[in-house]
């Protein structure tokens, strides 16, 4: 119950910030609408809704990283976390308390993206539900990156690193906006050594029902999620000791 109380506080802090709502839920929607409008006016297939939507749901998870990193960094920057360290909350409570509230937000963001995509012409299939559920392991990866950054950097640094660097990394190296085959070479090899493109291809495979490819992409995502979460737990415990 202690975890739920702490998680509830974190949910309120995140959802009560209008900027979080604007960027977390609004920005991915703007992207879907804008890129769909572009697609409607060009003769070539650039942003077809069935390829664009899974990409946008993954790109939107960058904001989950920003949410988790910002709340931890702000709590560290104030004495609030120090106060909580003198309560019966354990390290396990803290880590779950920061992680749990963001999973439903990530799912809600994904549901909204798919709802808008349906309005824009995405075919209704049961795979949409599966694609939304597969957001859970991917969101753990992005939340883990947030936990890691929030445990190391200040809230101002987190804005730059998670807000600018991660969104650019995810945008360029995920194949959301363009086919990585077009660039090829080292760029493609680097992209496939990172988890972002695998997360996008996982979602695309699930949505199209091409289940033969899911295993390898899911493995990449889960492997990175585990590594990042272990790193985040160590970083959090270390800063807890330092504080």
């Amino acid at each position, binding site marked *: 119950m202690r975890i739920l*109380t*702490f998680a*509830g506080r974190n949910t309120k*802090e995140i959802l009560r910030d209008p900027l979080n709502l604007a960027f977390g839920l609004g920005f991915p929607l703007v992207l879907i609408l804008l890129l769909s409008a572009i697609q409607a006016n060009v003769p070539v297939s650039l942003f077809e809704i069935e390829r664009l939507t899974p990409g946008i749901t993954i790109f939107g998870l960058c904001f989950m990283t920003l949410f988790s990193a910002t709340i931890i960094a702000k709590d560290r920057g104030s*004495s609030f976390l*120090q*106060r909580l360290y003198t*309560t*019966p909350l354990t390290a396990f409570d803290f880590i779950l308390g920061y992680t749990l509230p963001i999973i439903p937000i990530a799912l809600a963001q994904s549901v909204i993206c798919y709802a808008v995509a349906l309005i824009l012409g995405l075919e209704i299939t049961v795979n949409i539900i599966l694609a939304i559920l597969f957001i859970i392991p991917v969101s753990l990866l992005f939340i883990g990156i947030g936990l890691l950054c929030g445990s190391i950097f200040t809230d101002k640094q987190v804005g730059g690193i998670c807000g600018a660097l991660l969104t650019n990394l995810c945008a360029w190296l995920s194949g959301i906006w363009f086919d990585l085959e077009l660039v090829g070479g080292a760029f493609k090899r680097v992209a496939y050594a990172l988890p972002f493109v695998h997360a996008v291809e996982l979602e695309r495979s699930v949505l199209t029902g091409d289940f033969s490819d899911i295993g390898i992409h899911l493995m990449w995502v889960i492997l990175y999620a585990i590594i990042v979460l272990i790193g985040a737990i160590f970083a959090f415990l270390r800063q807890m000791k330092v504080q």
Partner: protein
Amino acid sequence: MDAIVIENLSKHYKDTIAVDGLSLSIKQGELFSLLGVNGAGKTTTIKMLSCLASPTGGDARLLGNSILTDSAAVKELIAVSPQETAIAPGLTVKENLELICGIHGFRGAEKEAKVTRMTELLDLAKIAKKHAGKLSGGWQRRLSIAMALISDPKILFLDEPTLGLDVIARSELWDIIRSLKGKITIILTTHYMEEAEALSDRIAIMKDGRLLICDTSDSIKKAANTDSFENAFIKIVRGDKI
């Protein structure tokens, strides 16, 4: 009966000695002040006693529980109001109080009763629905103390509770602290001589991590051969012959 027994407590960093062999005991219900100039070791002492920092030597027992081996039990007994105001800014005043109740395992009617009692004690009713981040410094400090008190701690640490407050807000907080005297053991750190003198049963003066004197304000003045507590403090910290 002693609430806190400190035995040879030390905290050494690489090239600094923050606390050096501190030994003293504090009685249950006592309001005990730690005084000293910057870097004297007051906050480090509080951090060690509240299990936020590990000592490099010695131990302390809080109501019989060691800070080294029974930190979970210690955390059930204490509450801390840190030097900086430690509140959740996005939550309302009431939600902040409910949060601490929930973390300490209070639910339902018990939680409601505690929130109501603390709201009345610290006169928070009129701001109960306001977001904590929008409150003035004085009200935030008041809320911070309410959050420390709501779990009914046996030992309360107040680290510079009136720092940066205006005269009225400080006076009001003094009244609140006075009202707690005898009910719980309070360890207060402060830079303000008049605050320590007005509120404390006993005062310990520290310098460079060491305890210089520990007694009532009257006895400290007598030992320094002066009528002013501030002069006594200056004489003792400077190491003048007393």
